[in-house]
């Protein structure tokens, strides 16, 4: 299988949240049932953000204007499945890895140690941690379905056809064609997202109203501190090796060292070498004081 991608076309999305529900259903993710358990965002966006049991969220951007007083821009918020994912680079336990067949960022939650390095490395703020051990939960691209030749649950359920799944190049071609059409209709800010950002993403997006309305960073970057963190391992190794080598050399030069027994004669205020009987030094008490 070649690299695949999920295509999200915001110009076709009706924000029905079918994808959000399908994700929960397929992955067995619970939702709180208590009244007002989820805080209100003031819009139809619910829950307010991705969380431990919500891997996919339909984002609502509302602005005053338009013929009906409000202009909506919808966006799909979930793992972007970067081609070179920072989360995988920093994961110390192998809980995150790139699936060689699809290019999706796969999760082995049982290996997660809850360090949250991945959350620090993700420029989209996607990885969430929950449960008693606060282990990772994020979109897996429904690899269990894809391996069986099926589309991810969110794609399968999308009624307006805003979500598509297939070969990444094919998805990009569709996205560019759609953006060209939108621009021709006067949506000047329409843009394809995910082609080159962070060396490419496996979620391609058609953003009808531009990136600001979609809440996407124009030039996403992995936190530079993450790169420095990567340097700390070899640096610590070098530091440890250097100090061990230095101390080893010191040990070797000290082999055969023998010290004579010293005794202090408090009456005479002399420090005496008991092996030779010599006075090593005389303590001038007044001067010492």
């Amino acid at each position, binding site marked *: 299988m070649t690299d695949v991608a999920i295509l999200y076309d915001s110009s076709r999305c009706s924000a029905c949240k079918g994808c959000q529900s399908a994700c929960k259903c397929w992955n067995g993710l619970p939702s709180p049932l208590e009244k007002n358990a989820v805080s209100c965002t003031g819009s139809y966006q619910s829950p307010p953000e991705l969380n431990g049991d919500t891997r996919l969220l339909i984002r609502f951007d509302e602005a005053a204007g338009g013929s009906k007083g409000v202009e909506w821009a919808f966006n799909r918020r979930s793992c972007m499945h970067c081609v070179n994912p920072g989360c995988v680079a920093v994961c*110390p336990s192998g809980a995150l890895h790139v699936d060689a067949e699809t290019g999706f960022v796969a999760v082995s939650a049982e290996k997660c140690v809850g*360090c949250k390095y991945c959350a620090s490395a993700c420029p989209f703020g996607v990885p969430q941690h929950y449960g008693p051990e606060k282990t990772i939960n994020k979109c897996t691209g429904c690899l269990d379905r894809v391996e069986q030749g099926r589309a991810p649950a969110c794609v399968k359920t999308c009624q307006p056809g805003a979500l598509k799944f297939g070969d990444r190049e094919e998805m990009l071609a569709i996205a560019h064609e759609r953006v060209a059409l939108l621009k021709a209709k006067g949506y000047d800010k329409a843009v394809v997202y995910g082609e080159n950002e962070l060396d490419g993403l496996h979620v391609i997006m058609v953003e009808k109203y531009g990136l600001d309305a979609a809440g996407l960073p124009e030039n996403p970057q992995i936190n530079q501190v993450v790169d420095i963190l990567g340097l700390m391992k070899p640096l*610590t190794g070098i530091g440890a090796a250097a100090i061990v080598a230095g101390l080893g050399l010191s*040990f070797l030069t000290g082999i055969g060292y023998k010290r004579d027994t010293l005794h202090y004669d408090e009456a005479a205020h002399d420090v005496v070498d008991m092996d030779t009987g010599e006075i090593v030094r005389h303590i001038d008490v007044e001067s010492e004081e």
Partner: protein
Amino acid sequence: MTRYIKRHTLQTRITHGTVAVSCILLAITGLFVFVPALTTAVPPHVVLMIRRAHRILGVIIILVPLISAILAPKGVAHLFHNYFAKWDKDDFVWMKKFIPYMLAPKKIHMPDQHEVKAGQRVADGALIVGVLVMAISGIFLLAGTSFAELSASTMVVMRLIHDIAFLWMVIFGLAHIYLGAGIFQPYRGTRRLMFGDGNVEESDALYHWGHWAVDEIDKGEKITDDEEVVA
């Protein structure tokens, strides 16, 4: 008959021992998050167990010295007095000779020292600073991965600080073990000061802390002729 000078109380030795063991175990358990190869070499439930142990040890290494300090405020004042005492000529000479002495102990002779050597002040101070930085950044990491919601930027910066402090601790910790455990030949026998009965042989005391040894023998308060512990 060999004379001994009391150097460390039982409480100091217990505190030091607890911190030392915790520190070594923290380094080992911490490596399972620091080095991916180690993490993947053991089953996930073992990694989780190690992770829990790291956090418990982290709490121990913070609480034990704090409790000890509360129980012995005079000891803390004495420690601060020694570590921040004015440096004399012998201290500067000692520091200047330290590296050559480490590489040629048979030829280089060190000047007399007070209760805490110049090098001890630097190295122990570095270790204390390292532990403090690790403890503070560790508290942030513990909170951010358990009960508190900290920003990704805060977490990643705390991780960097924790990692840098780890490198710092590796360097000063290994040197401390090398000298404190008496692996370095002239330091043979110093292990018993913290991991034994807290007494130092007169000869060793005169060699390592000449000024202090003379003072203590002159005072005669902490001296014993056998290994009986002086209260």
